[in-house]
């Protein structure tokens, strides 16, 4: 594993080229629309899990309502395109911005308080979002959901299964790339400092509150973008897709993949989207396998598969704190 990591580090361009060729060729290797769809869903979750990782993994905050921002993005995009006649390419960034605005509001209201309050608030916000969507019939069409969300087109070409796949690969790659750059910037170092020790960070001149709100908003923008893609991919949105259970699924992926790393969320999304599909033949027992895999990971590698610092780990000890 370490040698592989060294190889990737020493040959970044070769690695990037190999990954690009692999991702580009993947739909043709899979050949089957169902597999391409599963790959596309992996892409959606890579965005969601990577963005939640900014909150949980980098900054050490805990959000239980990520699906709400995902849902806000999906509804914003679905409503703008079906009711106001917007173009998908315009609705996509706007969905991110609207989700980000809600993220900022939640962040401003709660991030001055201790971490646990953010967890409660976001849990409540997730439920409130779902209930508002269900009950505000004149605005969101309530339990009816929004059907007929348009298929994106690009220079006159209408997206097909492969089109969606390539679009989500580009979006996920951009998300991971941007998060990678931010992580290795001054902002990223400030966030890690907050995670490791808020008081120390503050005494070093880090604006703890400001950076927390920034990180939270940043994560919500990506969740909104994932939601927008999802709305146009599924072409039907309803509140059922954005319940609290969805938030927990995303958190589980962060935990399994490993918090605080760039690669962990990708691994978590990959495994936890594919695993239940692979075990479909077990019908009602497939949930058991899902649970078993989680327990195994918690027992054998509490930091997550590729994690720097896991949610399941014991409180940090100085030795574990830094790898390098």
């Amino acid at each position, binding site marked *: 594993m370490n040698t592989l990591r060294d190889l990737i580090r020493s040959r970044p361009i070769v690695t990037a080229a190999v990954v690009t060729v692999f991702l580009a060729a993947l739909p043709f290797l899979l050949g089957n629309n169902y597999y391409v769809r599963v790959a596309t869903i992996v892409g959606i979750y890579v965005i969601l899990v990577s963005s939640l990782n900014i909150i949980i993994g980098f900054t050490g905050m805990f959000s239980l309502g990520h699906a709400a921002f995902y849902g806000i993005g999906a509804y914003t995009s679905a409503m703008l395109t079906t009711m106001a006649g917007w173009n998908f390419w315009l609705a996509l960034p706007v969905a991110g911005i609207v989700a980000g605005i809600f993220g900022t509001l939640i962040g401003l209201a709660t991030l001055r308080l201790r971490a646990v309050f953010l967890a409660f608030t976001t849990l409540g916000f997730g439920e409130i979002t779902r209930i508002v969507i269900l009950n505000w019939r004149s605005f969101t069409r309530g339990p009816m959901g929004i*059907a007929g969300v348009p298929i994106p087109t690009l220079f006159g070409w209408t997206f097909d299964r492969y089109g969606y796949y390539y679009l989500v690969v580009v979006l996920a790659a951009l998300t991971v790339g941007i998060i990678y750059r931010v992580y290795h910037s001054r902002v990223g170092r400030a966030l890690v400092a907050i995670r490791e020790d808020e008081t120390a960070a503050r005494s070093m001149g880090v604006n703890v509150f400001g950076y927390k709100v920034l990180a939270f908003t940043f994560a919500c923008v990506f969740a909104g973008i994932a939601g927008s893609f999802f709305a146009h991919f*599924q072409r*039907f949105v309803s509140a*059922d897709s954005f319940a609290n259970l969805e938030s927990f699924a995303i958190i589980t992926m962060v935990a399994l993949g490993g918090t605080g790393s760039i690669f962990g969320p990708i691994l978590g999304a990959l495994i936890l989207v594919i*695993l239940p599909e*692979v075990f*479909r033949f077990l019908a*009602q027992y497939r949930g058991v396998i899902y649970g078993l895999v989680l327990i195994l990971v918690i027992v054998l590698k509490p930091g997550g598969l590729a994690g720097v610092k896991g949610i399941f780990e014991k409180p940090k000890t100085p030795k574990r704190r830094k790898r390098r």
Partner: protein
Amino acid sequence: MRRIVLVSILAAALVVPVFATGQTEAADDSIHVALSAPITGDWSEYGVNFQRSVEMAIEAINADGGVLGGRTFRLSVGDTKGNPQESATLAQKWTSDDSIVAQIGAFSSSSSMAAQPIYDAAGMVQLSPTASHADYAKGSPWSFGIVGTQAGEGPFNAAFAYDDLDLRKIAVLHLNNDWGIDTAKYFSEAFESEGGEIVGTEFYFDGESDFTAVLTKLKDSDADGLFIASFYNDGAGINIQRDRLDWDVTVLGPTSLYSPQLISLGGDSVEGLYTATGFFAEDPDPRLRAYVEGFTEKYGDPPNFHAALAYDAMFLLADAIERAGSTDREAIRDALAETSDFPGLAGSITFTERGDANKGYSKLTIADGRFIPYE
């Protein structure tokens, strides 16, 4: 060491099923159909009953010699968890499998509608036993729903009230949600076009338990009948309070009132109430008795309306394949669209142009604490 153990377990978990699924492919000429249902999650009770009913139906059809001159059915079941996204993924799985000729499911309207664009693009029949959303069936020529809509039930209840019960002036009390508004609207329109008069309409909100104010208002309206668009729990409360107000009036309501709970909650106050149902579990019809008793014996509980609809869906599909004379996906769709007066256990089925069903219902009344057929 730990890492090696973990990696090998994960690898095994991902690879083993690939071999395991390989065996299910049958080489015979059986007809492969798929079922999407919420086997786990909040609606698992309905999903499991879907699976039981469809399996029972396939067993019965196969034992009876199958279709198209002896071809039997086999079933693949997929779990939607009640999640629209899973349902759409399943749709992609089913439509990518060339051996599958049609799909039954999903349970909820939103799961069915999320999967709709995929069935539509691939050209495969999506036959939902229970989706009743007004936009569902009309969304695609490949989508069909057999539960019936209020647009079909309203005129039936109106004719029941006007022709059979001789009511001329009706007061309407409805639950104020999308279902209740539609139910009251379609009933009232049909009753007025029969020649009757709606003398008052009141509503209540979900969760309200005091109906005396609205009942007093309606009592003064000089109505000879009261139509309640409610579910059985509110229906019982409304009747108990109507009784206390000494308002002696003929009460009738839609199929949603048909539940043994209405009688156990409402007691004497619901005596003589009129309602209807698509599925009357005590019906003496021999086919229905065989299903109800077979189901009860096998699974311990009697089937409900939703389970019976899934049973009907499978028989309807078999019937359509027989009429189509082939297992071609498009031929099945065309045959299904022409379905007329199909004798389902949960009401006869005739598809409208949009693909939702006009149902036949049985009229019921309550006497001596039991539902009995209205003669």
